[in-house]
């Protein structure tokens, strides 16, 4: 079910009403669980079985870690994590394994490539892993405080944590220690309506007006159509795709955060103006924060982080980024994308260790342009998963020199402008003029509502659904 569909709007309204009826306050969590299962199974009901299977692994393992024999805690935690990874590996990477390691006529290969990718599997299995690690380590909460003795109550709470519909299919990836302690009865009078309104309006604007319109132009990046275009439009399309992917995913995250808030739950920010970054390290602290912090907490640090010498630090960095790349999609191009970013982070770390670069506005702008340019070029691997097509794109860029397609460029510019202004607005947040503008913030929000009504693009699935 899409956030921008009528079916979803109706589901949310009914759920919201039932959720806040005082007489039903004791079944608030079951109400959200049922709504989440409807949301997930709306187009493919059979997927609900997979979700329930995945959740049941975590229910059993986390319960055993908490209330089982102390000597078996590690075994149960390992069992939970490994099984979560096995589910992810089987459903997400079987086609890649089939295509790479088995010849076409092989029956195993044929079987592997036909396994479908269930929507949201990368997100909900990561949340399961987060629960297992948090329960095992007990760094953030006391297990007995968040895991009830009753297996039934624990099952419902775990299903709710993993399946809560705003974050179920495309994140943000919510960590158990952030979410589980928030589970309690919520009251309608505690809703911060203004905050919800702002998050939802901005989210829907970025998705429906910016991303959905830009995607109609960036369609031309598809092979072989881009071969008919000239250099400047090809560059314009790349920039447009960079803004589209931000608007699409940041928009989705904002809607998810806003919806969760309407039901009394807080998610951490998932995007923090990533395109103002002046280093790759900073970019990864601002882009898809829930994934990068997950990888940092549950992969990079357990691997040893930067505590085991310089060589190991570089290896850990590369490994984390390559796996992070593969998390995005079961194709080698995603691994290449992760490697690009890994190399960029490693080179940046090496240079900043050796050379001290002075600070000035000019240098910051230069670094910002470099980071944005690199990130934008790397997005091409998302749009063109065939590596040969990426090479072809650059060849065409060099060969077809010219400017034609002015209208294409004009519309890409018009739809990208709000994303640029959004970042500039953040950069100027401390200035006096910005403080004054903030007093009239109802104007841009009103303008966004107006454009959502009059200027939405054709509804499309969110890019991150495929991950």
């Amino acid at each position, binding site marked *: 079910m899409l956030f921008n569909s*009528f079916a979803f709007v109706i589901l949310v309204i009914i759920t919201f009403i039932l959720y806040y009826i005082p007489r039903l306050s004791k079944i608030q969590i079951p109400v959200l669980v049922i709504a989440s299962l409807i949301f997930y199974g709306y187009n493919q009901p059979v997927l609900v079985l997979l979700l329930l299977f995945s959740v049941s692994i975590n229910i059993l393992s986390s319960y055993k870690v908490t209330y089982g024999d102390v000597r078996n805690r590690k075994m149960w935690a390992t069992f939970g994590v490994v099984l979560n990874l096995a589910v992810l590996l089987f459903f997400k990477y079987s086609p890649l394994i089939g295509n790479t390691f088995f010849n076409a006529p092989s029956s195993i290969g044929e079987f592997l490539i036909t396994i479908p990718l269930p929507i949201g599997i990368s997100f909900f299995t990561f949340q399961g892993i987060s629960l297992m690690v948090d329960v095992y380590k007990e760094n953030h909460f006391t297990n007995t405080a968040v895991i009830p003795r009753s297996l039934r109550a624990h099952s419902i709470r775990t299903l709710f944590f993993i399946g809560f519909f705003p974050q179920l299919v495309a994140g943000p990836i919510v960590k158990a220690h952030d979410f589980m302690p928030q589970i309690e009865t919520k009251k309608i009078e505690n809703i911060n*309506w*203004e905050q919800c*309104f702002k998050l939802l*309006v901005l989210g829907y604007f970025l998705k429906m007006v910016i991303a959905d*319109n830009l995607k*109609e*132009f960036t*369609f031309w990046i598809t092979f*072989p159509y881009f*071969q*008919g*275009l*000239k250099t400047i439009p090809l560059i314009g399309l790349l920039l447009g795709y960079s803004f589209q992917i931000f608007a699409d995913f940041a928009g989705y995250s904002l809607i998810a955060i806003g919806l969760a808030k309407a039901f009394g739950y807080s998610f951490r920010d998932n995007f923090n103006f990533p395109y103002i970054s002046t280093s790759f390290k900073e970019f990864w602290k601002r882009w898809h924060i829930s994934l990068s912090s997950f990888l940092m907490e549950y992969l990079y640090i357990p691997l040893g982080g930067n505590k085991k010498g310089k060589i190991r630090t570089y290896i850990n960095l590369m490994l984390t980024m390559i796996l992070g790349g593969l998390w995005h999609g079961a194709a080698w191009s995603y691994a290449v994308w992760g490697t690009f970013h890994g190399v960029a982070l490693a080179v940046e770390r090496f240079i900043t260790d050796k050379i001290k670069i002075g600070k000035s506005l000019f240098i910051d702008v230069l670094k910002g342009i470099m980071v944005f340019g690199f990130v934008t070029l790397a997005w091409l691997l998302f749009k063109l998963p065939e590596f040969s097509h990426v090479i072809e794109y650059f060849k065409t860029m060099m060969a077809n020199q010219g*400017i*034609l*397609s*002015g*209208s*294409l460029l*004009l*519309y890409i510019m*018009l*739809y990208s402008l709000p994303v640029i202004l959004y970042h500039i607005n953040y950069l100027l947040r401390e200035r006096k003029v910005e403080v004054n503008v903030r007093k009239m*913030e*109802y*104007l841009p*929000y*009103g*303008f966004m*509502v*107006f*454009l959502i*009504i*009059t*200027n939405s693009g*054709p*509804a499309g699935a969110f890019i991150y659904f495929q991950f």
Partner: protein
Amino acid sequence: MIRKALLTAFTLLLLHALFVYVNPISSSQYAWQGNTIKAQQFIYGDASESIIVGSSLSNRLVMDSLQGMTNLSFSGQGIFDGLSILNHSSKSPRLVFIETNIMMRDENENFTSYINSPVLSPIKRAIPSLRDEFQPVGILGEIIIRTLKKDELGQSNDLEEMTTQRSGDDTFFQKMLTLQAENYNQTPDTTVLRARFEDLAKAVENLEVNGVRVIFFEMPVNETLCDLAEPQMIREYYRRYFPESKYDYIRVPHCDGYVTTDGAHLGGAEALRYTKFFKRHAEALAAGQHPAPASATLPEQIPAP
């Protein structure tokens, strides 16, 4: 703050409606929007006697030359979208021309459910400024383009220009033609094809029950593609489901040397040439006459570029 923001939005909606009322600048920013605009103009506009349904191939027909006809051919889509929109509308044309080239594309439900939406459709009927052709960014873009003059900005069919047939093996056209040949040479899945024809037969029967006469036509493509496996098989199925003894067809044998932009789509002058051919045959068939076989007709005059 919420109240003020909503009030601002409401004020902007009123101003926009007023602007569109005074100065109805229509704009199409991309193919999908062009399709929605065409469909909305059909369902909210005056009835036509003749309707054309088809894919992007018949979308190239020059409608200025086909007065009294409405073209429900959509880029990237197929005949079932036009038929669905016609079926949901209250319009009852006398003639429906159905393009026969593309049969493997099913109805695009994203598109038809948007156009036929029971919620949005009545709102857009009542408030024209909310129709897709009057999107504020589109209007702004159109004003900028008009101000800077289309030619200077490179607006004039630049994509088409890039793809026009030229000599040489490494041109974009040749690459596209090779890809098209691969597609046209594939034999369609008979189960899927049969299902499509069953659907079409029902749709045609439904039209005929309402007194509509159906005429089939085939858009010319590059000569090297014209008689490959897929078009041959589609023609064979048409003969089986809609025999020539019962239905009228407008065909161009062996595609008659039409020049295309990418192997499948006619370019500007060639689209006009075919439109004239189509018009003559359509008018004759509508009048109950059977024009001379297409191969015997003289090529249409190609206007100077």
